[in-house]
């Protein structure tokens, strides 16, 4: 068989729809007669049609850190400064003053010096001011599947309408204490290796800081906040006055830095149905 009769070299542009009509006719005429080229085209289409395999944000950070280490740059800390600069410029370093949430959340630990919290009504601005916040869910009692990318508004929705709300509604106040440990355990199990320990540590930190309240870990996710790797955890909570679980708190901490100063903190009421 004469190799030059095949249309191999035209198959990639053909599959992408980038050939002129004459070439298209030639390719299609040939494909009708040639099993080999039809199989080739199937291979090309499989490669081009497969969803793009990008880096996850954790992997991206790992690669960039590896490059930075080997080439003498301190990339992560520069990005972090850029984050604060962006947030500061947009006047978005809002220490949340939503009453109980402040005490519950970062107030005692981070204090005014370090905690970065974007209140709900400013969150829209945050998207314009800095990078969008994205996250990838890895687990939780109602969030078993990879939820894909979540933008900033979607992340808040994970509190008010998403998995946190679902957990809040499905767990009666009497059972809240009892399921909290199980839910945390399932979250830790579902967490990807690089953040597993941090999930446990951060959840413990929050649970301990709020021991007067009932907190139920609802979901976990990894993602980025303004180019910074972040671990996201969502909690449903209640206090004695409220009885049922009616509040949400969603934290994003830098990974792998620890659980002291969140990059972002969102909290609010879960609307009644």
């Amino acid at each position, binding site marked *: 068989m004469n*190799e030059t009769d*095949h249309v*191999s*070299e035209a*198959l*990639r542009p053909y599959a992408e729809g980038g050939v002129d009509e004459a070439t*298209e006719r030639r390719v*299609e005429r040939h*494909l*009708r007669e040639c099993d*080999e080229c*039809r*199989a*080739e*085209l*199937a*291979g*090309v*289409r*499989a*490669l*081009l*049609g*497969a*969803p*793009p*395999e*990008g*880096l996850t944000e954790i*992997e*991206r950070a*790992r*690669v*960039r850190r*590896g*490059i930075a280490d*080997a*080439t003498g*740059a301190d*990339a992560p800390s520069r990005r972090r400064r850029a984050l604060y600069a962006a947030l500061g410029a947009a006047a978005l370093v809002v220490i949340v003053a939503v009453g109980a949430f402040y005490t519950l959340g970062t107030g005692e630990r981070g204090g005014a010096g370090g905690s970065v919290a974007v209140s709900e009504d400013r969150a829209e601005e945050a998207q314009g001011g800095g990078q969008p916040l994205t996250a990838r869910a890895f687990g939780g009692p109602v969030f078993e599947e990879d939820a894909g990318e979540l933008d900033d508004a979607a992340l808040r929705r994970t509190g008010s309408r998403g998995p946190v709300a679902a957990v809040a509604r499905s767990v009666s106040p009497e059972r809240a204490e009892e399921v909290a440990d199980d839910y945390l355990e399932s979250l830790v199990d579902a967490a990807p290796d690089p953040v597993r320990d941090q999930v446990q540590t951060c959840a413990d930190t929050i649970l301990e800081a709020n021991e007067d309240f009932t907190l139920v870990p609802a979901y976990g996710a990894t993602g980025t906040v303004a180019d910074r790797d972040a671990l996201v955890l969502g909690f449903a909570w209640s206090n004695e006055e409220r009885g049922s679980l009616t509040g949400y708190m969603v934290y994003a901490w830098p990974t792998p830095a620890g659980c002291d100063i969140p990059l972002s903190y969102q909290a609010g009421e879960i609307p009644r149905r």
Partner: protein
Amino acid sequence: MDRDGVSDERLLERFVSGDRASFDELVHRHEDRIFAVALRITGNRADALDATQNTFIALFRRAESFRGDARVSTWLHSIATNACRDVMRANRRAPEPTDEITAVEEVADVERAASVRVDVTRALRALQHEYREAVVLHDLGGVPYDEIAALTGVPLGTVKSRISRGRAQLGRLLEHTVEATPSKEER
């Protein structure tokens, strides 16, 4: 300094004359595509991550030796190809075709779209390394035939036949897992 819309080649020049941020921009532009190619060639994320990292470290160290007779993206692909070989050799994870063909069959009845990429990755692992490398570089990386010949050091005709055979094997392996796309002449 604004770096949007600046060509890769210009960024590399700026980096060579001391602008570190231009190097970072090159990393940001190309890391996903290099990773995608490395993942297809190595067949697993751990090796692909190492290869991606090593590719850019090599770019950093060898930037001054860039001749300018090819595009930076092609050059990166050639560095990545070698990085994949090194990583696979170091980790002794040469793909085992027979196992992987079984794996393809096992997932044949999975219908979800997400499974397609798993199938492609697995099917690719069933190919001989030389075939996989050529197909991935050309079809995924967009590297022209002659540049693949130059960077892998084999004759053009060999590159053509590797790409043809690799694609056809891939197509046949995936026949029952990827939905047939209606071809244009059938409309």
